[in-house]
């Protein structure tokens, strides 16, 4: 893995195109844009910032609001898809991620981490049609009633993502496999947008995952105070004062808040059920029994 921060940009193997002889072919660079509603728009602000020599879109308040609109629009259909279908799509995302392994490595992500991220998507893909069986319940109430509890998605989740690829996949996976849609504020813009390209080619409906790059500390407050966001995952927030501010702001509409972990998280460990159960609501339905 070359150390230079711009080394990935060329993919500059000589290709021997017509008439170029031994000269290196001029590479076609990628433009890193936002991912909103299944499309890759530039920031409406027209702003970019430099990351490893690339211009990356700097998401604005308006972009964050557009992303929430896209996430809300996509939510009912995604929640209404069969669990089998959601699992298929997450597995497809794992396939696409595996196929782009080299690109992530070229971005500086360790190959083992790409593998772990791929495996994490496979793990979550399998949960789609099992979580309800593990955390749902047929409750033996003291009376002639059918009484069933089952999880449903919380809705639209705002996420401040951790900076590693494995961390990013580990916050997106549990949110979407349970039927939520997400607005992700990424802290590793190039890997995040490349992951968005993975998701965009995985039959994931537009708007289920929306990825914003830029300054999460600047955009997160707009998600925290947004009336149409149901939950806020602060796993990637490293500044405790910012986390507390965001949590206070989220209290305005009583959003579910996942606080930043107390210490550093080992994303390679078994995540357990908690990342999924924190983003579902248990609904209990009663019905009388009788002839």
């Amino acid at each position, binding site marked *: 893995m070359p150390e230079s921060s711009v080394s990935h940009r060329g993919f500059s193997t000589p290709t021997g195109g017509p008439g170029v002889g031994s000269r290196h072919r001029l590479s076609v660079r990628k433009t890193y844009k936002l991912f909103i509603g299944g499309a890759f728009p530039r920031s409406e602000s027209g702003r970019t910032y430099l990351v490893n020599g690339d211009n990356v879109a700097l998401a604005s308040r308006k972009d964050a609001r557009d992303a929430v609109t896209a996430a809300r629009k996509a939510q009912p259909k995604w929640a209404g898809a069969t669990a089998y279908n959601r699992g298929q799509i997450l597995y497809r995302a794992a396939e696409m991620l595996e196929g782009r392994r080299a690109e992530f490595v070229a971005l500086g992500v360790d190959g083992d981490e790409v593998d772990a991220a791929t495996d994490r998507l496979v793990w979550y893909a399998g949960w789609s049609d099992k979580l309800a069986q*593990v*955390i749902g*319940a047929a*409750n*033996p*109430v*003291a*009376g002639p*009633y059918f*009484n069933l*509890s089952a999880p449903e998605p*919380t809705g639209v989740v705002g996420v401040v993502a951790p900076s590693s690829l494995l961390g990013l996949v580990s916050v997106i996976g549990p949110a979407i496999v349970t039927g939520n849609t997400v607005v992700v504020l990424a802290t590793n813009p190039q890997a995040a947008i490349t992951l968005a390209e993975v998701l965009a080619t995985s039959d994931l409906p537009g708007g289920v995952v929306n990825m914003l790059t830029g300054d999460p500390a600047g955009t997160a407050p707009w998600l925290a105070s947004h009336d149409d966001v*149901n939950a806020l995952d602060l796993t990637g927030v490293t500044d*405790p*004062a910012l*986390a*507390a*501010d965001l*949590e*206070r702001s*989220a*209290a*305005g*509409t*009583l959003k*579910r*808040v996942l*606080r930043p972990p*107390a210490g550093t998280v080992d994303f390679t460990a078994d995540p*357990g*059920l908690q990342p999924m*159960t924190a983003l579902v*609501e*248990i*609904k*209990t*339905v*009663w*019905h*009388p029994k009788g002839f």
Partner: protein
Amino acid sequence: MMFEYAPAPESRSIVDIAPSYGLFIDGEFAEGKDTFKTVNPASEEVLSEVALGGPEDVDRAVAAARRAFGSWSALPGSERAKFLFRIARIIQERSRELAVLESLDNGKPIRESRDVDLPLVAAHFFYYAGWADKLAYAGLGPDPRPLGVAGQVIPWNFPMLMLAWKIAPALAAGNTVVLKPAETTPLSALFFADICRQAELPAGVVNIVTGAGDTGRYLVEHPDIDKVAFTGSTDVGRQIARAVAGTRKKVTLELGGKAANIVFDDAPIDQAVEGIVNGIFFNQGHVCCAGSRLLVQESVAEELLSSLKRRMATLRVGDPLDKNTDIGAINSAAQLERIRELSEVGAAEGAERWSPPCDLPDRGFWFAPTIFTGVTQAHRIAREEIFGPVLSVLTFRTPDEAIEKANNTPYGLSAGIWTEKGSRILAVADKLRAGVVWANTFNKFDPTSPFGGYKESGYGREGGRHGLEGYLA
């Protein structure tokens, strides 16, 4: 027609209410610096004088709970279970006394405190007692640990039942608690303190600090508690969510609601009417999950409403201790004022108000069962929680419209569906954004059945296996 009933009052001699009560801290009753009075809302008679917990009192209670936590959480689960089973048994044995007490302090009909509240209180302790030595099987990991000290603040509408919902799972999981009962209904929690002593529960495991809103705030904001459990208004829930921001306190909030009770054109009208009455007039409508918005399909609206009005005319409002009473007293003068105010707003905004002819007692706080028809979604009485015996009636034409209207609220605690068509029940239940959906029934509760809200009705669940999650790490 209205039948004449002879009065059938339950005797209050079974309850011995002391003229004053202190705070229950570390297994002892201790006097507080200040006091306040608790009254019978049906007569405005002062029942007792109760200590008003201040910051130092909360400090002492939290410290006692902290001291008790080590040994309580180290007890084998099977021993904790036996304490809870003992408590459940004592509640059953004293349930007549406690039911009368609850009706005196709260104003709810004895028929309800005797047949609903107290049986559920005992059942709740029985249910969670059994969990205490089975936590490793709760699906929360192989060795779930208690959180520590829980600060619990409960409302006045189901004083002892809310206490059971809070204390039973907390203790089963190995936590110790400081509980603040509501300002207007402190007595049953103080009787529960006595039950803890009867059960020889170790000192400090349960502490009861009576007081008002400030007392609750001291408790919730206390730096040495690990868990906040609150049932009450959405506004206070928001304040609590702000207050705990940046801490490691785990929080469960069970807040307000504005439930839609949806009646489709194929519903059995008589059963639906019983369900509507139970949904909104049970416990004087002082129920966070009350079916306060009736959504009735246009084609049957007229028939349903005339049936509902006929049924409402038979409701008996009056002495809570009379076994024939359906609707008791409004819990406090302040709550009565709020109900009156919103009802006046409803009429002023153009909805049509109706109540059956109904004699109300001269003393105490009373409000006749009331419905508003011609209500639109913009009306405040369709949007705000009234927390009283007041029903807003709206109509719809298609199932989609019913779902749209039902979900058009920041709340999401409960909902009702009335129809004979099974597939419609399941499809509508799937689409309602509410934590509890009652189909062809309403206001049913059980310790095994998780209860709690979506959206601004709060988070976390109480009851069932899910109810343990809020008390374990």
